[in-house]
């Protein structure tokens, strides 16, 4: 038998020390402590905040919005593209949120260019299709890293920061053109909402299709000038949609566009050619507007990577970055619940 507990040799002590240092080093590397330029979810989320600081308790972007419930009526045609249960013929409950692309929950409606729609469709097995879409026809930038640079430029004190950014990033031009010359409407119900990001649909035979999707409004789109919209008041959008939905459910057609080989699937600044195959897979009906601070949209994260089987992320780098950023925003705002109190009565403010 070996004699128990001899004093450890210098050699093995040194080995232990080296091992511990190596593990600590690897940990620091993994955590990003050795690479301060790494883009983290925290940096992305902080970049939305105005100089006065983020609105505590609220979403760090698309902070202003109004919740609704409704139904998605799948017509079954989508089963040709994906075996997801949500595309097989049927009626599935929906939780949704109309919103404005701003970090300010009190921004006057007529001052916010980007309007969005968050959606969660649930099927009986408990699977969910979550998506968050906007009315812009293209995204301003090609990568999450460039999005961060754009946010930094928007937050910059330099009055030429955006011009400098635009000059360095020609891919920004189509979005800028839409922002300047695109139509403004007086209603969330008259907007078209686009996924912009691409995803992969897997059909019953296992074949994969790269797709994007859009919600096309049934309501007729009426162009209204921003001067006119300003006169309607700071919150006209939520007031209008509440009235409109109370009168009748508001509908959109869900249309899926299939990429052809060679289409830019990883770059949301690039639309696909207009002649690509499209399939109308169903209809979204917004049936009831819900309270925003007390309602069911408060504690949900419309994470675009929460997808049913038969759908998954593609080579588009945005959904993963969004998932990371939305989780960060969600963690922050749910921990700050006391700064965004529920109304005691449960009534809308």
């Amino acid at each position, binding site marked *: 038998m070996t004699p*128990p507990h001899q004093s450890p040799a210098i050699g093995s002590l040194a080995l232990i020390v080296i091992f511990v240092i190596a593990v600590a080093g690897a*940990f620091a590397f993994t955590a990003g402590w050795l690479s301060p330029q790494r883009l983290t979810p925290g940096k992305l989320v902080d970049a939305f905040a105005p100089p006065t600081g983020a609105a505590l308790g609220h979403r760090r972007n698309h902070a202003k919005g109004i919740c609704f419930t409704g139904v998605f009526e799948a017509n079954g045609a989508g089963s040709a593209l994906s075996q997801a249960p949500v595309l097989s013929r049927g009626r599935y409950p929906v939780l949704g949120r109309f919103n404005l692309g701003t970090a300010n929950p009190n921004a006057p409606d007529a001052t916010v260019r980007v309007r969005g729609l968050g959606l969660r469709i649930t099927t009986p097995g408990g699977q969910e299709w979550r998506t968050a879409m906007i009315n812009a026809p293209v995204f301003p930038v090609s990568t999450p890293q460039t999005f961060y640079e754009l946010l930094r430029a928007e937050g910059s004190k330099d009055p030429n920061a955006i011009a400098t950014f635009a000059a360095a990033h020609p891919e920004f031009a189509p979005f800028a053109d839409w922002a300047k010359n695109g139509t403004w409407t007086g209603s969330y119900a008259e907007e078209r909402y686009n996924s912009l990001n691409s995803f992969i649909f897997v059909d019953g035979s296992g074949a994969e299709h790269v797709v994007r999707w859009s919600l096309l409004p049934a309501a007729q789109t009426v162009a209204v000038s921003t001067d006119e919209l300003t006169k309607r008041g700071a919150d006209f959008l939520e007031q209008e949609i509440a009235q409109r939905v109370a009168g009748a459910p508001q509908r959109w057609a869900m249309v899926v566009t299939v990429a052809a080989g060679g289409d830019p699937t990883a770059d949301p600044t690039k639309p696909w050619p207009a002649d690509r195959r499209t399939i109308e897979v169903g209809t979204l009906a917004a049936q009831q507007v819900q309270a925003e601070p007390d309602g069911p949209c408060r504690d949900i994260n419309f994470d675009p990577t929460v997808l049913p089987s038969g759908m998954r992320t593609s080579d588009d780098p945005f959904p993963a970055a969004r*998932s990371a950023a939305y989780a960060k925003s969600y963690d922050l705002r749910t921990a700050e619940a006391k700064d965004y109190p529920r109304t005691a009565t449960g009534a809308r403010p």
Partner: protein
Amino acid sequence: MIVAHRRFTPVQRLLHWLMAACILAVLFIGVGMVSTVMPKYLTLVAIHKPLGIAILALALIRLAVRLRYGAPPLPADLPEPMKLAAVASHYAL
């Protein structure tokens, strides 16, 4: 029934090293996950959650095994402060 063996049973040693590997992995995956927006974020989250649950399950199994087989006494010649540290860290865990 608690029997004092000279060593931990093979099952206990297996559990010990399995959990050591899992815990180290989950720490690395967790800290990498919250510091990236790259596509690997989704993969890391997809491993992190089930691995965390697996560690919980292993911990429960380990408790049951410990209750069944007990633990050997600490080496008699271990210095007092180290004994104290061993006992205290066990209860802390």
